[in-house]
C-alpha cells in the first residue's frame, strides 16, 4: 500500500509522533528479535526504541517508552504459553493508545479470537513467517498504529474453512463473496480488498453488502468494527 492509500475511506488518520512510529520488540529468541529489528529498520517511518526478552521486560519497556506499537512473540517467559496475548490484554487498560502486533507460530483461531476479544482496534495477529515479508510486517505495524486491525490470512482460512456443518450460512455465499469475507476478516479496508482481489472498490462494496445481508450482519462503517463482527460471526459458526 502507498501512503496515499492510507487516507482512503474506511481507514483512520495515522497516529504518529513526529511522523515516526515508535516500536518495542519483544521475543525470547534472539534470532527472531534481531530479524524483526532489521526488518523494521528498513523503513524510515518506523523506529525500534526498545527490545524485551520476556513479559516483564516488555511491560517495563512500554511503561518507560510509551511506544506506538508493540511487536511481541506470543510465547515468552515466564510461562512460555500466551504472554503476548496477556500483554495485549493488560495494555488495553494501561496503555490504550499502544497498538499490539502478536507474532505467533500457531495458526489456531483461538489465539487470534482471544487477542481480539476485547475489541479488534489496534491489534494484529500474524504468523511469525510474515516477518520474512518485510512489507507485510511493516504494513501491519502501521495499520495498528492507525487504530486498525490485521488478522493473518492463514488464520482466517482456518476459521472460514473450519466447521462446515449442514445448514452452514457460509454455504449460501458465492465463491467471490467468500473471498471478500476472508479479506475483510483479515482486517483489510475496501481498498485493500480491492487491491488483493483485483477488483474495483465499487465491486467490493457490492459484494460486501450482499454477503452481509446473507449473513444477517449489519454493514459496519469502521474497518476494525467490521473485522470484529466478521470474526465473531465466523467464530460462532465453529
Amino acid at each position: 500500500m502507498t501512503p496515499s492509500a492510507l487516507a482512503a475511506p474506511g481507514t483512520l488518520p495515522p497516529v504518529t509522533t513526529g511522523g515516526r512510529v515508535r516500536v518495542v520488540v519483544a521475543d525470547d529468541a534472539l534470532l527472531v528479535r534481531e530479524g524483526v529489528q532489521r526488518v523494521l529498520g528498513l523503513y524510515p517511518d518506523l523506529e525500534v526504541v526498545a527490545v524485551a526478552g520476556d513479559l516483564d521486560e516488555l511491560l517495563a519497556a512500554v511503561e518507560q517508552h510509551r511506544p506506538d506499537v508493540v511487536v511481541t512473540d506470543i510465547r515468552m517467559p515466564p510461562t512460555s504459553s500466551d504472554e503476548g496475548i496477556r500483554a495485549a490484554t493488560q495494555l488495553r487498560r494501561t496503555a490504550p493508545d499502544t497498538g499490539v502486533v502478536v507474532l505467533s507460530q500457531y495458526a489456531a483461531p483461538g489465539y487470534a479470537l482471544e487477542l481480539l476479544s476485547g475489541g479488534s482496534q489496534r491489534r494484529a495477529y500474524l504468523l511469525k513467517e510474515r516477518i520474512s515479508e518485510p512489507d507485510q510486517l511493516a504494513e501491519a505495524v502501521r495499520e495498528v498504529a492507525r487504530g486498525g486491525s490485521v488478522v493473518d490470512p492463514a488464520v482466517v482460512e482456518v476459521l472460514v474453512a473450519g466447521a462446515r456443518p449442514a445448514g452452514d450460512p457460509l454455504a449460501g455465499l458465492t465463491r467471490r463473496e467468500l473471498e471478500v469475507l476472508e479479506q475483510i476478516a483479515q482486517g483489510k479496508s475496501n481498498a485493500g480488498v480491492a487491491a488483493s482481489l483485483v477488483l474495483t472498490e465499487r465491486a467490493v462494496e457490492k459484494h460486501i453488502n450482499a454477503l452481509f445481508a446473507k449473513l444477517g450482519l449489519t454493514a459496519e462503517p469502521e474497518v476494525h468494527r467490521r473485522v470484529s463482527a466478521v470474526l465473531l460471526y465466523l467464530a460462532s459458526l465453529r
Partner: protein
Amino acid sequence: MTATVPRALRGRSPVRLGPVGRRRLLRTVVALAVAVVPACIALVVVFDELLRDAGRPDLTQGLTSGVVYVLAMVSASVVGAGLVLHRPRHPVGWLFLGLGTLQAVGPALTGYAAYGAIARPGSLPLATMAGLFADSVFVLWFVSIALVFHLTPDGRALSPRWAWAARATVGAGLLSVALVFLTPSHAEPPLEGLDNPLAAGGAVADVLDIARSVAVILTGAGLVVAAVSLLVRFRRARGTARQQLLWLAPAAVLIPVLVAASFVASYLRSQAVLDVVAGLFVVLLPIATALAITQYHLFDVDRILSRALTYALLTAVLAIVYVVVVVAVGAAAGGSQLSAVVATLAAVSVAGAARRRLQDAVDRRFNRRRFDAVRMVRHFVRAPEPGVSVEDVLRQAAGDPSLRVAYWVDGRREWVSGDGRPAAELGADDVVLAGHDRTIARVGAGPEVPPGLLRAVVTEARPELDNAGLRAAVALQLVEVRESRARIVSAADASRREIERNLHDGAQQHLVALAVKLGLARRLADGDTAALLDELRTDVQETLTQLRELAHGIYPPLLREHGLGEALRTAAARAVRPTTVDVATARRFAPGAEAAVYFCCLEAMQNAGKHAGDGASVTVHVGETDAGVEFEVSDDGAGFDPAVAGESHGFVNMRDRLGSLGGRLTVDSGPGRGTVVRGTLPV
C-alpha cells in the same frame, strides 16, 4: 489379637492320612476301647447274677446309679472315640477314651472282686487286687478330668507353671493308686469286706495310710486347680477361644459344687444324689469338651448358655429361699406342712423378680447383640448375596457404617482396601484376622462397637474375608497396571510437550530467522537472484507450515491454554472430511483427561478421514455426564467390520489412553452404516 480358625467354618478339611497301616491301627485301638464299655456292662450283669446265685444279693451293684454310670461311660467313650478319630493328635480325645474305659472297668472289677474275694474267696485269681484297684479307680477319673481341664481347648497347658500343676496331679493320683495296694483296705461297699494281704503293718501302715489320704486329697485339689486353670484361661481368652471355653467354663464352675455336693451326700448318706449329680456331670463334661474342641456351632452357645445359666441360677435362688424359709419357719412353728406352704409362697413371690434380675446379669455376660450380629454374618457366608460386599454385611452386623476392612497382600507386604487402594493406617483397636499360614485382613470399627462383637463377626466372616482379600489382591494389581499405564501415557504426553516445545523454540525459530534473512537478502538483490531468493523464502515458509502442523499434531499448546473446545475445533478445521464439533461443556478437566479425549477424538477423526470415504461427514461431540466426560466421534461413511479392523493400532492407542485413566471405549460400526466411536472417562 489373632482370631483362630473356627473349624466349623473351614469346611471339611480332608483328614490327613498317614500311612494306611497307622490309620487302621488307630481305628482298631479306638474300636477296642469303645468295645470295653458293653463288655464291662455285660460282666457286671454276669457277676450280679453269680452273686445272687451265691446267696449274696447284698453284694450286687444295683441299677439305681447304674443308668447314670452307663450314660457317663458311653458318653466319655463315644466322645473320646470321635475326637481321637477326628483329631488324633489332640490329647483330650485319648483322655476321654481312657476315662470311659476306666469307668467301665471299675464296676466290672468290683463285681469280679465281690464274687472272687468275698462271696467265693479264692474262686478267681487276683480278685483282691482287682477289688483294691476298682476301689481306687475314681482317683484316676479325677486325674483324667483334671488333665481335660488343663488341656482344653488347644491340647496344651495354659503355661509351664500350670503344666507343673497338671503333672503334680497325675503324680499324686498314681501315688494314691499305688499306695492302695500297700495299705489296709478302706473299700466302700460292696467291697468293705476286702482284706489286703499286701498291706504293711504297724507304724509303717499308719504312715502309708496317711500318705495315701494326702495323695487322694492332693489329687482332688489338683482337680480344683485344673478347674481354676480353665477359668483363668476363660477370663484371658478373647474371641473364638473364649467362645470355645464357654462350653466348659460352667463345667469347671460346677467342680466346687460337685465337691460340696459330695460332702452333703456323704453327710446325708444319700449315695443316690451324689451318683446322679456326679454322673450327670461326667456325662455332660465330654460332650461340652467335644463341642469346645470341634468348635461346633460355636456361637449358638451364647444363647443356650445364657438361658440355661439363668434358670440354673434361678433354681439355686429359689432352693435357697425355700430351704431358709423351711428351716426358719420350721424352727418357729414346728409344723412341716405350714413351713412347706410358706416356703413355697416365698419362693414363688421372688421368682419373677429374680428371673429378670438374673437374666439381665447373664445377658450382660452373654450378649444378644453379638449373637444376632454373628447370625447375620453367618447367613451371608452361607448364602452370599450378589452386589453385597462382606464389608457391607460387617458394617450392618456391627451397626457401624464407618467400619473399614483392609486386606493383607502377602506378596506385597502391604494392606489394601477392597478395591485395591492403599489402606489407612492400622488402628490401635483393629481386629486382625490371621489364617494358619498368613494374615488375612484387619477390621477397624468405631469405639461404640464392643471389641468382642467385632472379633466375633470378623471370625465368622472369615471365608468371605478370605475371598475378598484375594479379590483385593487382584484389584491392587489392576490398580497398579492402570497406574503404570497412566504413567506411560503421561510420560508420553510429557515427551510430546517437550518435543513440541523444542520444535517451537528451536527449529521453528531458526527457520523464521532464516526466512527473515532471505527476505532481507531478497530486497538487496535483483533479477534472477531475487527470483531465486523469493523461491527459497517460499520454500522455507512451506517448511515452516509443515513444521507447524507437525508440532501441533504432536501436542497442541492450544489444548492446555484454551481447552477441548478450541483445540478440537482447530483440529476439525484441518480435517480431511467436513467436521462439526460440538463441545457441550466449558469445564476444564485434568490435563491428562483432556489430552486423552483430544487425542482419541483426533485419532477417530483421522480414521474417518482415511476410511470413511468421500462425501462422508464427521460429527464430534464432547459432553459432561455424572460420571465424568464423554465423547463421540461419528461419521456417515463406509464403516467397517469391527471383527476385522476393530483392534487396529489406532483403537489400541485410544483404549490405552482411556484405560489408563479408568475410562472405556466402544466402537460401533458395520459395512455401509458409518462408524461411531464413543468414550467415557471418569474425572
